[in-house]
């Protein structure tokens, strides 16, 4: 049976940048266990001769030629920015301690 601890949920929430309260963690951890159990039922039908599937389409090698196509204008690109652009660039909060 899959087991997922409260600490693991907290870690996943942190990775996904989701702020979860203690109450929410208590609530979600057992729920995730139930979800994982449900998905694990696939193991009952999985056979050695069936490779894991990541794509439902029987396609490979879908390529485009190396040809330049028109881009957006900078104005169009920046039009959805949540914060007023500066120097024709997206303005984002600095993540502390990341870049030297």
């Amino acid at each position, binding site marked *: 049976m899959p087991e997922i601890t409260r600490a693991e949920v907290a870690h996943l929430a942190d*990775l996904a*940048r989701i702020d979860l309260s203690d109450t929410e963690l208590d609530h979600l951890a057992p729920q995730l266990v139930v979800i994982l159990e449900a998905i694990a039922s696939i193991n009952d039908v999985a056979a050695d001769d069936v490779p894991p599937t*990541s*794509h439902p*389409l029987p*396609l*490979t*090698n*879908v*390529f*485009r*030629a*190396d*040809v*330049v*196509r*028109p*881009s*957006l*204008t*900078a104005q169009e*690109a*920046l039009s*959805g920015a949540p914060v007023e*652009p*500066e*120097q*024709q*660039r*997206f*303005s*984002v*909060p*600095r*993540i*502390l*301690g*990341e*870049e*030297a």
Partner: protein
Amino acid sequence: MTTRTAEKVLSFEEALAGFDPTMGLEVHVELNTVSKMFCGCATGFGAEPNTQVCPVCLGLPGAMPVVNEKAVESAIRIGLALNCRIASWCRFARKNYFYPDMPKNFQTSQYDEPIAFDGWMDVEVDGETVRVEIERAHMEEDTGKSLHVGGATGRIHGADHSLVDYNRAGIPLIEIVTKTIPGTREKAPLVAKAYVAQLRDLLLALGVSDVRMEQGSLRCDVNLSLAPAGSGQLGTRTETKNVNSLRSVERAVRYEIARQAALLQSGVPIVQETRHWHEDTGVTTSGREKSDAEDYRYFPEPDLVPVAPSTEWVDELRASLPEPPRERLARLQREWGFSDLEMRDTVGAGALVLVEETVAAGAAPGAARKWWLSELARRANERGAEVADLGVTPTDVARVQALVDEGRINDKLARQVFDGLLAGEGTPDEVVEGRGLAVVSDEGALSAAVDRAIADNPAVADKIRDGKVAAAGALIGAVMKELGGKADAGQVRELILAKLI
């Protein structure tokens, strides 16, 4: 947190006395495709910010990526040139992380199914060959470029923030990862540098990248760990980023060896972390602690179907590979009969291809080297130009040498022919004609000049008659002077000896 205080280091010699270094090198190379990895945006360097972006590389909802075929082709050719096996089937994967340089909040990369794996490259250091094993070469995309704006600019709340340009986001990258390179001891810094230098030459010969380290199209991360000398163990490693010149690769390896040794010797364990290399001060500083691989929560990219190169395609690409740089150098040296020093000088002067083409145009290798490395390299130097940019072609040089070989000019006159070529006076033959440089080959005129020289120098002539052949030099000089240098010295000498002995 980042600390700028200088850390204690041991001397390189002390460090090696106590510890064995093990390295791993990760090189990111930007391909020179004209469009991005998954969309048709242009890839030119230096465009105005956010002018080479579209819904795909900005990660806008609903945008669908499509793989650039040329990038896959380049990846396979790189893999083949590194003696790798090529995957017959592989997928892209999402590497999930939140950092503003990736607007999608994931980087499209490859995880456990790289397109190329299990290769090697032989690296030459001080005449010794070190085999560097290649773990994998995989396809991914570059990130955007951040401009950090400090709080010292007097802005409201003084808050630090960053400005991002996504022109670079989505440019095809190939990440080439070595296996750990053990046992290089004191040569570790030089092996690292030689590996990156040779890899750069290889990528250049393949024509897949501009490989300009100063523009970031070739970037190197250095993984390094130490273990007690002779223990055969593997220590905890650090990953030093931002090592972006050949000289820095060598210096960063040397510095990390000395820094880690100082910590270990005083009983402080190494923390597995990312470190940043500072070109100006020559030190590394602590960055963030390295995430575990699981933290990126890789999973197969659902928007892209697998890449499955057929055997025929791979064979076709294999046939398009250039001769590997080292093999080519070795072959040319063998064919030309150059010494190691002569070969190094030729490469160093940027004249390898010029000499090769001059030889192909019919000149002897030694003569081709002589003209390019002495005469033409000197003139290029005077003009502050590259020898290849002088405007003198290999065909010209081969023709000048042919004129010398035919006895129509001598070396001294050949130099004047180069003057004429550089002054734009036409072909070598036209310069010889226009400047009246041909040697006097008219037997009658030569004979008369020799007779006069003998008559003017009776004492010298007597010595030669007595068998002192070496004295002929004085007479040759007199004849050359009379003919303004336009005579073949060998021919004059023969004439003098024939008349006197």
